[in-house]
């Protein structure tokens, strides 16, 4: 679409004129980093058990442009449904709720991590084993479709993998 192409080229130009606190030379994750306009997705992981229970997908989205963007959808061939969720806390209870979209601030970072945002994958079309790669497509309102490769990990390894991928100062 012409409008989208125009937006994309403006974003591309803006991405060259870097703004605040972004992309600090974080090492690309194996198969995990994809860019679209000012948007970079990295540290993408799927934690899964058997094929008959939901899996969780997590990643970091960085928006190095000066235009705010919004994650509006996600899809993957390994699951019939991929839904954005976030955990809400009431006292010491937590409940997940679907969210229609999540903002990725200009010059900012959006992290999907346990206890916060996650993508819930249901209707898995196959069993996912640690070491597998899951290909997913993130859809952002301005940047459009951004493909990403997520590494499948065990739940026991998830938090460590996420913190390793998000902590350049380590």
């Amino acid at each position, binding site marked *: 679409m012409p409008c989208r192409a125009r937006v994309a080229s403006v974003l591309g130009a803006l991405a060259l004129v870097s703004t605040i*606190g972004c992309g600090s030379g974080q090492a690309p994750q194996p198969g995990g980093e994809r860019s679209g306009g000012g948007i970079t997705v990295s540290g993408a992981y799927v*934690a899964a*058990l*058997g094929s*008959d*229970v*939901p*899996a*969780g997908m997590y990643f970091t989205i960085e928006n190095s442009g000066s235009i705010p963007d919004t994650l509006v959808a996600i899809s993957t061939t390994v699951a019939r449904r991929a*839904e954005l*969720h*976030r*955990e*809400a*806390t*009431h*006292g*010491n*209870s*937590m*409940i*997940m*709720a*679907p969210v229609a979209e999540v*903002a990725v*601030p200009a010059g*900012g*970072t*959006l*992290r*999907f*991590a*346990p*206890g*916060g*945002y*996650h993508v*819930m*994958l*249901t209707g898995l079309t196959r069993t996912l084993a640690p070491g597998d790669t899951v290909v997913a497509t993130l859809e952002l309102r301005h940047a459009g479709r951004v493909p990403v490769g997520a590494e499948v990990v*065990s*739940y*026991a390894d*998830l*938090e*460590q993998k996420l*913190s390793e991928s*998000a*902590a350049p100062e380590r």
Partner: protein
Amino acid sequence: MISGERWNAMVAHQTASRHGRRVRRIRWVMALAVFAGVTMAGCSPQKDASASADSTASAGHVSVSDYHGAVLGTPLAKPDFTFTDTKGQPFDFRAATSGYVTFLYFGYTNCPDVCPVHMANIAAALKQVSPDVRRHVKVVFVTTDPDRDTPQRLRSWLDNFDSTFVGLRGPMDEVNRVQAALNMEPAEKVAEADGNYAVGHSALVVAFSLDNQAHVVYPFGVQKADWAHDIPLLVRDTSRAG
């Protein structure tokens, strides 16, 4: 009491920030502040790496500030209930866990985020402690979704983590009564798309010491290293032994 909006703002900040890890620590510590009567002792997970060598930790008095978990201001007695285990047998919680350090958690298998992370972290930590410590620990998972969590589904889900984890099913009003005795909110079903639903439930793991009282609780956000640090302390803490 922290309002819902404030919590949501904190969560949004956590996930929108590069410092999510630090905010997450502060967040789970603050979650405990809302949990009435909680003492904030012992909430620095970085502390004392040397004490994590559980085989050299000596038995005896453990100071509250040694725990990485959150120490309760007022201990909680083990609730009295009998639910059905994954073999269909009655499980009398107090009798069956008497004399064990017991981790009690309420969750469900259609939970892709909080529940499997908690269970996986505990299972991993239990593999790191000595066999002598391990044999004094029981983990009990009570489903807050008995409609979907059949005994078979519950067993196979728990077996992903540790085949010795006990899975229990009970009537929801009884499950909520037990949660209430532990100062937890009742589980709550929230409809999602296509007839699916999520279940709100307490994300705390309650740790009962050898005196059959809960002195320490573990909210979501506690990591493997924290469990591996505290499990030997819970087992060896004779100041809280029966």
